[in-house]
């Protein structure tokens, strides 16, 4: 295996995601993995590492640059095709949806490249999910702060307990078919407008 092991170049300005992919590839037994964060070094890096597969983040604006470089490259003498197999529409779509695009040296067998791309796609998806969860947690925290402020306003103006203030907000939300945090936000806005 080692003699024919594929050389893989990862180009991703997001260092965390790049390292997640790199780890995955190494765990899968690939040792010839190079990570590049700055696409400006791509010419030299391609010359040095002579990659069989290049995985690049779709959000990287320099995809155009990279493709142009391939099209006239004196360094990479072999023709380069994007994706595993042009006819593999499902694979292409899965990649693009995940935000990953891959350039593969023409002539490589699909079976050899597919697991690499599958891994990259699943890692991209996992990273996106992680980021979404982080955003959700942040939103939740923000929401809780708003509800606390709204409760405080009610407790102060109506002289009620925290539990009663919460019950009042919740019943208002249920009656109006709106989210608790929206009612809290409305109350805070109103209080700011009417405020002392």
């Amino acid at each position, binding site marked *: 295996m080692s003699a024919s092991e594929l050389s893989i170049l990862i180009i991703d300005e997001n260092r965390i995601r790049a390292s997640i992919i790199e780890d995955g590839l190494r765990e899968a037994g690939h040792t010839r993995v190079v990570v590049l964060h700055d696409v400006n070094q791509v010419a030299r890096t391609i010359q040095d590492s002579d990659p069989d597969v290049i995985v690049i983040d779709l959000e990287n604006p*320099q995809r155009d640059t990279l493709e142009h470089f391939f099209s006239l490259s004196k360094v990479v003498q072999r023709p380069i095709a994007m994706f595993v197999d042009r006819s593999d529409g499902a694979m292409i779509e899965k990649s693009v949806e995940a935000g990953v695009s891959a350039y593969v040296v023409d002539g490589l067998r699909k079976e050899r490249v597919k697991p690499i791309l599958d891994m990259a796609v699943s890692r991209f998806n996992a990273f996106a999910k992680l980021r979404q969860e982080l955003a959700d947690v942040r939103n939740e925290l923000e929401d809780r702060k708003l509800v606390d402020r709204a409760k405080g306003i009610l407790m102060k103006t109506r002289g009620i307990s925290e539990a009663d203030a919460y019950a009042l907000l919740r019943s208002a939300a249920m009656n109006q078919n709106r989210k608790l945090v929206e009612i809290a936000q409305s109350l805070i806005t109103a209080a700011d407008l009417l405020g002392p």
Partner: protein
Amino acid sequence: MSTTRLTAGFLPLFDSALLVLARERGFAEAEGLDINLVRETSWANIRDRAAIGHFEIAQMLAPMPLAASLGLTPIPTPMITPLVLGLGNNCVTVSDTLWQAMLAEGAPGNLVAGPTGLALARVVAASPRKLRFGVVHQTSSHNYELRYWLAASGVHPDRDVEIVVLPPPLLPDALGAGVIDGYCVGEPWNSVGVATKGAHIATVKASIWQSSPDKVIGMRASWAEQHPELVSGVIRAIYHAGAWCADPANHDEAARIMAGPAYLDQPVSLVRRALSGMLDTGAGVSQTVPGFFIPHASAANFPWQSHALWYYSQMVRWGELKPSPQAAAIAAASFRPDLYRAALKPLGVNLPLADSKLEANRQHAGPIAGVPSPFTMLPDRFFDGEVFDPDQLDAYMTRQQQADLPAG
């Protein structure tokens, strides 16, 4: 009327204006379309996401539907355009260092392509290193018009200089960092280079080739086939947006909309220059370019098959494509004047009778045959006086090939 949601990709360039205004000014809504605009980071993404169907329609470089249909792209997909997003809008912008050298070699400083190109040729000949120019994509009007200008000025674009590809918003920074000496791009990225990097606008697309196309609305041929009503709606919405955008009374509002954070995210006064044609060409010099960007006049939105064939001739010229009658036919068929006419005929607006025209033969504004009546076309000359006759395609390509051979 029920509304259909269409997702449209675009890049932050002034020539996305008609697509943006179709949404923002309600022209799309009037056609029952809810256009969901997605700003992309590279032309490669626009091309790929349109090809796999993430985008129903997209702002595209005019040669892009040809390239996709001819199989020059990573995901070869028959693509068409039924509509052009306007004429002009590009400049060639150079660093202050290069500009000073060009001035010393006799550049007139009036944006006129001919003498400016000759001054550049003298700088290139004397330069100890190869000058490097940036364009936005390989199959782009920018690449072909920069190459055309260089070649006709005596600079071979592959032997004498280096041409690299960078996305539009990165070009001013690359120039500022000294990575490139000049670039060809649409507005506002020339004005941004002038305002932030001390660059100079050397010449303009409107001087290299007057009234020439640049961006189109591209879509998969199969999608257009399946949704003729939606295609017609898109054409009408953008046609109306073009008429609205062309009215000087609307320039302030158009500039304000385009300057917004979701679109160009640049100062309004800078964005407005593309509309007025009044450019700050560098070091505070202000020059007005007639027909700098033409969103409506001169059948600006009509997809002339002769334009498609000119792009085809340049793809062959620069070695991207082997010429064949089949390839030429595919190229021409990717521009669809029939769809344009079908959509606009009910409005009773003037429509060109022919699908193709003799290009670059018009020195002064004049009439062209149309239904229900003729209409006025603006001058469309190449700066070197060459004429492109789509019926003499092979002769044109042979002539260029011979001119491009090394001297001696």
